């Protein structure tokens, strides 16, 4: 197996990724086994297999790149991805199960999702930016540049509009800042306007939160510039007040998704449908599941987007809790390995890239799996390696390649 070791750079990472990818193709195949066959899902597993071959090719190439080149290409890649994202807004099209999202660019017969590449580019860009610093961010102002760096692609993705992918960028930002040594308080303050936005649904709760926030700022007044404190207060005030107009600016389906998250029974035939059916599918899977390809909820088309965003519902229905646990263990192993490699590496850039990838995957996994069971609101976000989607698979494998390559260089 020495060839594998040589090829994979990091056999653990690549091995788990291969297992997950094949597992995913199996589930995509099963998702296509319907009682009334649908042309969309029927051949998806074959196309995904082809994409896996492309991904392995990309992996082979990417693991041969010199780490220095990776560092060098980080910023150009970031700029390029931002340009592509901007272009998507102009020439983008919807596709597949995400018909309403302008996320794809078509070049001849090829169709890809710049937002997936942009995640990787953002990880690289942020790592480059933070690694260029001499030390950890020590003021809130130091967070400004990294925040803007992430905010640009994030904003462009929101405009598509693709809330799920946008959340992945948030994960990248916080993971990068955390690994760069940003004090947790700063991370909290950075997140506070977002928190204010969530809490603003109730004036009382928001008011209590705001008083608490001011108290925290006062207690830490010696570590913050006055302008920084003022900015945090203003940001929270703004978040609290724009909540209503922002709510109004959301698309109907986005609002409904948030509402049915709180109460799926509100609209069981409409927006709550996906969540209820997904829960029924997973719950009825029981301990051992209904058997591979035998899921009735899936077969009868009750599951929404079952080969992409809701692939985990199929896993839950057909393989039961045992299958769910297996998937969780595999993802844990993958993420654990990333953290382990990041801890080992001495190069700040490598560590930041590894941890940034950890952040984006963790967000993907938690939100994707969590939404199928009603733990988090439904957002269109795929499950790494498992969900159907060529660009995403290639991106994930490139991330594995870069992680393995950068970690290998260090050890």
């Amino acid at each position, binding site marked *: 197996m020495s060839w594998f070791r040589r090829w994979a750079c990091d056999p653990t990472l690549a091995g788990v990724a291969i297992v997950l990818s094949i597992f995913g193709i199996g589930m995509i195949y099963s998702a296509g086994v319907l009682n009334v066959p649908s042309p969309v899902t029927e051949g998806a597993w074959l196309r995904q297999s082809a994409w896996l071959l492309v991904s392995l090719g990309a992996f082979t190439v990417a693991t041969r790149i010199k780490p220095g080149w990776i560092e060098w290409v980080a910023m150009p890649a970031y700029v390029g991805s931002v340009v592509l994202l901007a272009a998507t807004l102009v020439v983008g099209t919807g596709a597949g199960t995400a018909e309403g999202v302008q996320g794809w660019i078509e070049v001849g017969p090829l169709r890809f999702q710049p937002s997936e590449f942009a995640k990787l580019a953002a990880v690289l860009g942020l790592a480059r930016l933070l690694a260029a610093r001499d030390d950890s961010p020590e003021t809130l102002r130091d967070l400004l540049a990294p925040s803007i760096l992430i905010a640009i692609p994030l904003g462009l993705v929101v405009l598509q509009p693709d809330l799920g992918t946008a959340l992945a960028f948030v994960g990248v930002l916080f993971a990068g800042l955390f690994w760069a040594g940003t004090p947790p308080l700063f991370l909290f303050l950075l997140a506070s306007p977002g928190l204010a936005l969530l809490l603003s649904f109730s004036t009382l709760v928001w008011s209590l939160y705001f008083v608490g926030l001011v108290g925290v700022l006062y207690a830490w007044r010696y570590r913050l510039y006055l302008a920084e404190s003022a900015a945090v207060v203003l940001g929270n005030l703004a978040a609290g007040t724009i909540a209503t107009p922002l709510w109004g600016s959301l698309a109907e389906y986005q609002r409904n998704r948030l509402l049915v998250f709180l109460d799926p029974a509100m609209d069981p035939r409409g927006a709550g449908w996906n969540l209820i059916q997904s829960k029924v599918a997973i719950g009825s899977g029981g301990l051992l599941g209904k058997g591979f390809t035998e899921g*009735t909820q899936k077969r009868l*088309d009750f599951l929404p987007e079952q080969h992409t965003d809701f692939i985990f519902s199929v896993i839950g229905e057909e393989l039961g809790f045992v299958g769910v646990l297996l998937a969780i263990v595999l993802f844990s192993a993958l993420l654990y390995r990333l953290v382990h490699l990041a801890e080992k590496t001495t190069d700040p850039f490598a560590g930041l890239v590894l941890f940034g990838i950890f952040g984006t995957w963790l967000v993907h996994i938690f939100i994707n799996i969590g939404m199928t*069971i009603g733990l988090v609101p439904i957002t269109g976000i795929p499950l790494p390696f498992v969900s159907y989607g060529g660009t995403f698979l290639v991106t994930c494998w490139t991330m594995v390649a870069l992680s393995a390559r950068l970690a290998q260089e260090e050890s």
Partner: protein
Amino acid sequence: MRTVHPNLRRGRARVALLLLGLVMGLLAVVFFRAQVVRGSAWALQSESNRLRVLPLPSPRGTIFDRYGNVIADNVPSYSVSLFPAPLDSIESGLRRIQPILGFGEERFNRLVEQASADRRQPLLVDADAEYEAVAALEELRGELPGVFLEMRPKRRYMGGAALGHVMGYVGEISGDELERPGFEEYEPRMIIGKDGLERQYEDLLQGSQGVRYVEVDAVGRVVGSFEGQAAAPALPGDDLHLNLDLALMEYIHQIFPDSLQGAVVALDVDDGGILALYSAPSFDPNRFVGGIDSQLWTFLNQDPTRPLFNRAVVGRYPPASTWKVATAAIGLEMGVVDSGEFMPQACNGSFRYGNVVRRCWDSSGHGHLDLAGALANSCNVYFYQLGLRIGLERLVERGTRFGFSEPCGVDLPAESSGIFPGSLDFWQDRFGYRANENEVLSLAIGQGPNDQTPLKMAQFYVALGRDGTAPAPRLARLRGEEEPEIEWSLGLGPESLDALREGLREVTAAGGTAFMSSLEHWDFIGKTGTAQQGLEQDRSHAWFVGLAGPWFEEPEIVIAVIVEEGESGSAMAAPIAAKAADYHLRRKYGIPTDTIQTLREHINAGVSAPWARWNGRPDPPADGSAVEIE
């Protein structure tokens, strides 16, 4: 950035791993709760999500005739229905299958109306779809949410219109019927007997519905087989064996004049079993299966000849001369007349009673007649005198005892009772005057307030063929059922019965009114009748009621025929009775049925009839044994 100290990295890694552990642990706990702790509840919901409960229609019991031939059975048919859904989905569903099933706008509107009236029941679009349409629907099922096909047993009647009135028909249970007592076990959409035997023996013929589950997908398309999985099988109804003779029914249907109305009843003398019960015009019960179309229904109901009216058991006619046998029987039973006795007044064409003059049908008169002669000539004058001897009160009393004011008790849902005075109060109640003794003149010759169903007349003649008793006529032969109860007896000894039969025999002998209908192989005896209707210009109804059997043996079949406005009992009704009786007996004794039957047919065909009884009956064999029939 400078290299971060390993301790710091380890610290951050620990935080990250803690976060990872929390996230994954949370997911694992949530899924454990949903799948293992609450799994069964979700599993139940998943079942109800995808399974629709549908009834599994049960086949009705098969109906056999007396020889074991199938009269009614079931063949598979496909019905097309739509699952309950919002009205607009129903409408769009109907629009999509409209070209395949090919129904018109009127039917479309009616179906939509039906769907909006009952939102919970599946909507039956076509109860008996063409095979091609079913195949097309099956093929397109992916594009037709809510449509489901159902294999339903479909009733098939072998005799067609020959058995319309006896069989009745089946149809989907109506809302009214569902609420009636006795229908508690029934469910909407079930097929029930609506009339005739199908209704009479509904409890027996109806099986019990099964239950099946059909799998549907998220948009209501049926997946897998349309048959689904049977959770409880449908149990077929019990079979029904009849006294009826299918071939005889078909033969009667064939020989009864197409353009005329009337009825034919044939009874088995032995047990009163109904061999044939035919009413013309008839209808084909097969047309009712799967829902009769409104046009045909309107036609059947508005047709002046009333095809749905069962003349054999519901129609009432003045029995006319056929009732003279009853007068004769009463006279004999009371001992007021002897069979060989001549009435004091010879028939000269009319009869005076007090200041009333009543006519005989033959104005030239019949002269002196004994009982047999009076029956043979249907002489009114003889029966006027016999009636007077009996007396009005006793004639009414005996006639009532013989059941002429009651129904026969046939096993059909509807039967008319005869109209006959129950007592002398009848005239007071009905006409508002006290009965005059001269009413007996009318009653004695089968006129006056006396209307009988063909079945009733047939039942009365059964008593003549037996020992003077008559059981209730039955269509069905139910297992374990005792011999039909005898309700009344003529109270006549064998000599009196012989005398009556001898009189009836002369009717078909040379000089008798129905001589032309006499038969080669059988002792065919009977009485013609011509019943005048109320108005002079109306054409009379033609009657014949008779018995037939092998020579010198007991009669085996009673046959009653009425032809509305048939004018002449001897020319119109008697041949039908003769041919039907002949057909039945020939089949019973294995004689080919394709040869000429009545004397008239022999004469018309120029075929000699050496068997014709120019002088009474053929000579009995010297050794006293029965004539061998070949």
